[in-house]
């Protein structure tokens, strides 16, 4: 999500009065076509984003200024969106906490540990999983995962019940916030593993050899060269995953039976829904201001995604001097 501030088409040579083209000609047609296309593509993205933002603002605005009693729930927009925002962030964070280390492990295994004969098919398999539609994950979550998790949740309540997350009482169906988070984690795992694997594979060979020649073991070599080099790529992968988790509709809508609560209890039967799932569940029956309200929640989600992205970019930029890209 980088914004090309100004795209210099011809470089500094284009400035100043046109001189006689004595030393070669500046008419590089291919160059112009290429930079023109690239600029056009960049502008298209910006225009699209601006269009979406404008639409959300325009359609959502009535809900933002409406009298509290007119908004669904009867308490105004902010009380309406808060539990949803909370649920969205909570589910996505659970998913990311589970998926981030797993995806790094899977990617490292494929890129640096598995014998080449196994690595390639395994890579394809992971890529394939990324293409499975989310409804499949949702159904898997309801019918397979949730019942399996009930004893696990019970165990969590018994042993870790002093933590607010595992307070209980345990849901009898297993359809809880933690289940939703796990389903989301499984869902974003392939894309994150795929991105991580690609960036791990791009570590310059010379860097890896420098570490090995110093007497590094494979894991030391990975810590010295592969992981630092892949930092910004891993953040990008996590952002892709987080984006998918934040916006995921079906899997969450299928798994959770929502309530308008803010609760850190991850294994109970009352769970806050997420913005996306809430829109999907309520949009068909809504009309009038209720529609505006849903669109306004969409605006909140849009803003949230932006904020998360900016934070991630800032994290990456903080040690830019030390990034592998300078090698």
């Amino acid at each position: 999500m980088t914004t090309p501030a100004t795209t210099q088409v011809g470089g500094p040579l284009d400035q100043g009065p046109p001189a006689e083209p004595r030393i070669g000609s500046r008419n590089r047609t291919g160059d112009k076509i290429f930079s023109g296309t690239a600029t056009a593509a960049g502008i298209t993205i910006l225009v699209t984003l601006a269009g979406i933002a404008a639409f959300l603002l325009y359609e959502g605005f009535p809900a933002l200024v409406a009298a509290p009693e007119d908004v669904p729930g009867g308490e105004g927009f902010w009380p309406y969106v808060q539990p949803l925002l909370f649920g969205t962030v909570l589910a996505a964070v659970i998913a990311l906490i589970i998926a981030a280390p797993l995806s790094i492990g899977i990617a490292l295994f494929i890129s640096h540990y598995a014998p080449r004969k196994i690595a390639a098919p395994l890579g394809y398999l992971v890529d394939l999983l990324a293409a499975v539609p989310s409804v499949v994950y949702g159904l898997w979550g309801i019918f397979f995962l949730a019942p399996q998790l009930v004893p696990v949740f019970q165990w969590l309540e018994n042993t870790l019940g002093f933590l607010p997350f595992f307070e209980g009482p345990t849901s009898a169906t297993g359809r809880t916030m933690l289940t939703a988070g796990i389903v989301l984690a499984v869902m974003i795992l392939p894309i994150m593993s795929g991105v991580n694997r690609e960036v791990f594979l791009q570590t310059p060979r010379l860097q890896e050899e420098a570490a090995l020649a110093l007497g590094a073991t494979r894991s030391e070599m990975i810590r010295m060269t592969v992981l630092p080099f892949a930092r910004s790529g891993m953040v990008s992968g996590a952002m892709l995953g987080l984006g998918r988790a934040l916006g995921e509709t079906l899997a969450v809508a299928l798994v959770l039976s929502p309530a308008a609560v803010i609760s850190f209890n991850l294994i109970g039967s009352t769970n806050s829904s997420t913005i996306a799932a809430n829109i999907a569940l309520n949009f068909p029956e809504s009309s009038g201001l209720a529609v505006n309200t849903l669109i306004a929640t969409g605006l909140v989600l849009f803003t949230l995604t932006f904020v998360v992205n900016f934070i991630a970019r800032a994290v990456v930029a903080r040690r830019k001097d030390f990034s592998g890209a300078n090698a």
Partner: protein
Amino acid sequence: MAKRIDVKDLDIYYGSFRAVEGVTMSIEPRSITALIGPSGCGKSTFLRSLNRMHEVIPGARVSGSVILDGQDLYGAGVDPVSVRRHVGMVFQRPNPFPTMSIYENVVAGMRLNGRGTRKAAMDEVVEGALQGANLWNEVKDRLDRPGSSLSGGQQQRLCIARAIAVKPDVLLMDEPCSALDPISTLAIEDLMDQLKKDYTIVIVTHNMQQAARVSDRTGFFNIAGTGQPGKLIEMDETSTMFSTPSNQATEDYISGRFG
């Protein structure tokens, strides 16, 4: 603790391609051995087989033996990682770790395998290694800057500092000066002269004068043609090699008649 190396009947392969064939040579401790020869004759390949770096390339393998003070580096049960801790290496292209500061680059080897050291001791090693690599004066005020912020020549000297910071028994250098200006080159050559009191040094170089200036013994590699394996043609005292080589090909190469 310099150690001697005895190479016996070494064949080196990339997959099914035999890049180097039948090398037998002795590398004396506390001396500098130069390897010369035309491009593609397998000097780098041979050098990398001396610290088992060759085998990190998929499909690459070696047959024969490399004996470091009585121990076969390719013997059963020998861990390549510990071989590399004893036989250090400087590469043809400078490769400091870009994500580490200059200071961290120098101590990178010391920090491996939990061999953490006190800060004061590390400071001392950093200064010593950087001074040894003739880089201290240029970087002493910016040790916390990234290694990649240095010029190419400075980066190469940083790599030398990094390699000598762990005090290896043997130091392998693959054209270490090819990215350096004449002054830095001379500094590195002086450095090698100092280092040879304590280390066994093997250097690959394309620069005949450099080989003649710094080395005690010189080995000449050659290939019969593309696709053929490289072979060690002749090896002798450097003075003999450059004045009265016994092989015609050596004489031709040294006097610049080909290659």
